[in-house]
């Protein structure tokens, strides 16, 4: 039976290849602003925003929109983002190390670095230099452990502020369907080196 299935699968594979060959090369996919992804089995997200450290410094979140004990909760360190106070951490080399205290793979993991700040230390370069670590795997080194995810990447020497943004999918506590939960953490780099 299994052999028959394998034979069938192989035949299907050959059929697909034959169809592709008969049609010539696949149609060219034009660059599109839409983003598409295939659905997979649900991996339950962390029940709270995970602990995060950057350069070994454990950080409080700047923001999160999370479902905790079945209730949606929004936390902002400051209502105005320009009033946010960041922890300063040493930055002896270009390498940044971020440790996320959960082994659950996030749905999105972006690290933004900012090179320009105003007199109050607020980044002035809009969204900064953003690295999508789940897709730009050549720029981020990811190590998944049973209860942590370690990310290392090279940051510009002139980087002054680093922000980590995480996103997880979760079941909607109010009914059917899904929601997503996001959170961010940030540090100011001690660039006196």
């Amino acid at each position, binding site marked *: 039976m299994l052999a028959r299935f394998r034979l069938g699968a192989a035949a299907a594979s050959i059929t*697909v290849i034959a169809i592709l060959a008969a049609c010539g090369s696949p149609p060219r996919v034009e660059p599109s602003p839409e983003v598409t*992804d295939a659905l997979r*089995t649900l991996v339950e997200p962390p029940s709270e925003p995970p602990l995060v450290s950057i350069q070994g410094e454990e950080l409080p979140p700047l923001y999160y929109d999370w479902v905790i004990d079945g209730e949606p909760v929004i*936390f*902002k360190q400051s209502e105005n983002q320009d009033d946010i106070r960041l922890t300063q951490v040493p930055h002896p080399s270009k390498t940044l190390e971020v440790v996320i205290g959960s082994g659950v*793979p996030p749905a*999105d993991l972006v690290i933004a670095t900012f090179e320009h700040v105003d007199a109050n230390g607020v980044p002035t370069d809009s969204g900064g230099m953003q690295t999508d670590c789940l897709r730009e795997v050549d720029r981020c080194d990811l190590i998944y452990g049973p209860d942590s995810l370690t990310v290392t990447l090279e940051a510009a020497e002139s980087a002054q502020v680093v922000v980590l943004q995480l996103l997880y999918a979760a079941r909607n506590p109010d009914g059917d369907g899904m929601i997503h939960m996001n959170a961010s953490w940030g540090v100011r780099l001690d660039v006196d080196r």
Partner: protein
Amino acid sequence: MHKVERRAEKKSISYARAWAVLAVVAGVALGATVSAPAYAAPVDDQDDGFSELEHGPSDPDAFTKITSGPSESQLSNQAPAVHKGAIPMAIAGFSPAGCAGQTDYAHWSSGSNASVHARTSCSIVVPALGVSTNLQKQGWAYWENVKWGESSRAAASHSQDAHPHWYCGGWGSQNYRGVSSHWSDEASGYYTATTVGAENRFGC
């Protein structure tokens, strides 16, 4: 409170959908280790009788604010395993119905609104599927959720569009994007994906 709107989607059997079906066949043949290719589901705003919910953080019963962060985080009890590289796909199997989610780029909409559209589409009819989408406005420290919308259907192969709209007058030029959670409830289980749409800067 929830604002119920009736929205619509024009059905169209697209060339791209044929590719999705082909991908499922190929996925079976290759041990389901490939994802469905990107394809566009045509949409418009005509009314076809399906309901859609929208609400934002300004709703008094939508969220609860607290003033301090979490004191601890619950850690996983999974068996020790270290995986280096991209997401460990071994822990997540693909939707057998070839379901895929899609989020378009955020855009300016009539009436000084920022908006984004998103949807979930499958190659075959599934018991239920849907999409929920947050329209987000960028700040340097985080993307703020400004409006949420969802759409779901039973016994269908594609959802309606979730398309939250947010009045953005007075904010000047801002960067917006949509983030969507897609789901399908299939005979073999529950499947999800998250898509983050392209950013777009515009004034209202």
